């Protein structure tokens, strides 16, 4: 059976690419430290020697729209074009083309449906920065085939937080039941406290540093009980109006497993948001 060789959870800051490729006067003062942290984070994936990447993210009203909005969707295609005109325009993100791993997509869909998750699917999916940002940070060669999984953290009504955790746990089991010799890393991105288009946006820090501190503790310690006892769809409005993206971190805690302490934990306090990076090695840290 396939092995889950790394579980990785991260924020997806669309400005990373532009900040760290800028030079001279255009290079922001925090770019060097940011790039150093990302290089250390990247190494945690490289060391696991993955063959396939399951990528959990959330479409930002690019291909998925309110006339037909899935809660959880799995891509099943041989290729995925990536990044959109408005991401090029606002963030300077490059167009990309990623290969798909269709056998694993088919397995995730069949096993997920059989496990009680009514997953939507897409045979032609153009992915956005929720998935390309971690490709850029963690695997810039973009040379590994992927299985994209999109969650709705964006367009209410949203699934409950516990459903994200349950889906994460199911993804772990499903990947480990895939009849394959391949090494799989599951990578997901979300947000800590975040405000977009509201009064608390683009401050000197994230909108709720205290929430961020507690969230990092929950994730780093795999404290699903603590997290689930405090986080509700209503409570997530308080730290910032886009904080429902934290549920993708909860999904990744489900993949890592209750009580699983992360092997790599790092954060970076930036304007507008705190960045956070976590890696778990389910079978022990690679040599």
């Amino acid at each position, binding site marked *: 059976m396939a092995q889950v060789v790394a579980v990785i959870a991260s924020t997806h800051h669309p400005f990373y690419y532009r900040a760290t490729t800028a030079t001279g006067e255009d290079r922001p003062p925090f770019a060097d430290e940011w790039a150093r942290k990302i290089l250390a984070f990247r190494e945690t994936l490289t060391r696991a020697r993955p063959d396939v990447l399951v990528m959990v993210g959330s479409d*930002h*009203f690019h291909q998925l*729209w*309110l*006339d*037909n909005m899935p809660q959880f969707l799995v891509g099943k295609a041989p290729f995925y074009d990536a990044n*959109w*005109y*408005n991401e090029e*325009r*606002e963030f300077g993100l490059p167009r990309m083309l990623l290969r798909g791993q269709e056998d694993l997509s088919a397995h995730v869909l069949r096993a997920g449906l059989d496990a009680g998750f009514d997953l939507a699917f897409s045979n032609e999916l153009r992915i956005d920065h929720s998935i390309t940002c971690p490709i850029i940070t963690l695997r810039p060669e973009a040379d590994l085939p992927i299985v994209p999984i999109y969650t709705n953290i*964006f*367009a*209410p*009504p949203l699934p409950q937080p516990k459903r994200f955790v349950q889906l994460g746990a199911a993804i772990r089991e499903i990947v480990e039941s895939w009849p394959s010799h391949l090494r799989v890393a599951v990578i997901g991105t979300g947000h800590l406290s975040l*405000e*977009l*288009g*509201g*009064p*608390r*946006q*683009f*401050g000197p820090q994230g909108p709720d540093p205290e929430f961020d501190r507690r969230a990092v503790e929950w994730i780093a310690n795999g404290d699903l009980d603590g997290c689930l006892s405090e986080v509700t769809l209503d409570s997530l*409005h*308080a730290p910032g*109006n*886009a904080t429902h993206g934290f549920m993708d971190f909860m999904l990744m805690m489900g993949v890592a497993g209750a009580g699983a302490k992360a092997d790599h934990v790092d954060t970076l306090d930036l*304007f507008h948001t705190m960045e956070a990076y976590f890696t778990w090695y389910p079978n022990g840290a690679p040599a």
Partner: protein
Amino acid sequence: MSRYLVDKFLYTVDRDPELVERYRTDPHATVAWWEAERANAVLNCTTGEASTWLRFTDEERDALASHDHVRLFALGAHPFLTLTLFIAMFERDHDEPMAYQKQYGLRLAHFSLPYPDIAT
């Protein structure tokens, strides 16, 4: 209330570079044209199949036609859609990085939790 249609306007204009410029330079005419010609298009149909019932309220139409992002927030337009499109239209008018984004937030400073509902 037609919150969905306001979001549909923001979404379809934002993804079309030519419409972004039209909306920036001539918002009243662009909103009127869009409501007459585009509001009822079923976006996933390539053959021009359309709905028959979608229209703005007077307040929504006026908020869009006056580029009033504060009123759009109050009406429950999706904040990500409004922000993204307004950055595309107006960030260029500011010299300092993030100056427009900060000003945009300040103009919303009188809102406190709970923010207006954005469910559609």
